[in-house]
């Protein structure tokens, strides 16, 4: 729940563009963009995801660093499980 997962916006969808298909290490899931309404990310941008919502825009380098931090913390598998779980109901 407290994991911050980096992902790259692959596609923006939803009738009011509030959803994005986000790529996290090759896994693609829908993520909500509603909390970045003031400065919406574009296709190709990197974001940090919390519980299925993009919470901040980050650089590509920061995204790579965050992925490595998750791996160092032993949380990489938990993060990927979380991402695979989005849309999974």
């Amino acid at each position: 729940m407290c994991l911050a997962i980096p992902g790259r916006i692959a596609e923006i969808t939803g009738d009011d563009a509030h959803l994005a298909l986000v790529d996290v290490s090759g896994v693609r899931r829908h993520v909500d963009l509603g909390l970045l309404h003031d400065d919406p990310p574009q296709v190709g941008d990197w974001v940090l995801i919390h519980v299925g919502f993009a919470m901040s825009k980050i650089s590509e380098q920061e995204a790579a660093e965050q992925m490595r931090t998750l791996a160092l913390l032993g949380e990489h598998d938990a993060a990927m499980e979380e991402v695979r779980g989005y849309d999974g109901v």
Partner: protein
Amino acid sequence: MRFVDEFRDPEIIARTCDEIRRLADPGRHYRFMEVCGGHTHAIYRFGLKDVLPSNVELIHGPGCPVCVLPMGRIDDGLTLAKEPNVIFAAFGDMMRVPGAHGSPLEHKARGLDVRIVYSPTDALKLARRNPDKHVLFFAIGFETTAPSTALTLMRAKAEGIRNFSVFCNHVTIIPAIRAILSSPDMRLDAFIGPGHVSTVIGCRPYEWIARDERKPIVVSGFEPLDILQSIVMLLRQLRDGTAIVENQYKRVVPWEGNKGALRAMAEVFQLRPFFEWRGLGFISQSALAIRAPYSAWDAETVFRVAGVRVTDPKAAQCGEVLKGVLKPVQCKLFGRECTPERPVGALMVSSEGSCAAYYNYEHRKATPVPSTNREPAPV
């Protein structure tokens, strides 16, 4: 140093550790609280305690959402799960947290419809797909997750989805810090501020800690170097006699936070007059309730909530550990009755709980020494 060796900049790490040793006055003992459970996890995982001088002590704070939730709220939520046609949805972290009559997972084994969701929007999706059921989302977390719950409620209202409600247990970090600072048995010199909560609230809400309490606070990232650099920044402030808010995690945390997320929270939530925290007791204006325009989606309005109060198992000293008064290993149940496999208290459940972190990275590596002066405590 254990995991620090895996870090890509061992030289910078070594230089930062040298800097810490230079700055730490040997005639002084420093007590720094890391507020966030993610930092607690990182500190144990990377073995950072081993690289710090013995007079720089890290105290683990209250920033682990499942750890601070009182057992009565879990029982209240599970009681609602027993209502006819209810699907109880919660994050995976909640599933093994013990209530007085078992965890959500144990209730699932007994036949309740308990589902893991990874996002509040997925709980709402469950409601769309099960129009003949009522989906109850057990919401927990600090400001990192509260905006997502808020936006989900805004969507439920906009779409007029009526078979969905939220049992709101969101808490806010600032009142918890205030409670800790006013606790008479707590002496702290400075704070390592939470990283991800701050992406939402920004750095301004911490200014009173520096201004009124004269305690330095540095918002920190989660890598070993981030935490060590934050400690350098705190030691420099203490050396210079200054107390300000600094942002070590600028690459992710904007000073003003995420205004859209704060707006969503303000739209949907209001402060509760008071809320019970495990270990810290009742703290005024420390938790979020759902505002009246959203009351049709507020489980506490839709259902009758008993408001159960359950005292923690007597021998468990979660409260003292949460406040940083006791180290995990000083609790009578630690590693005996209470283990990550069979947790008695919530601090042993979450990887961000200080007991689980201590158990996984400190206790397991140590040779167990049989206790001669302490009887196993009754549960």
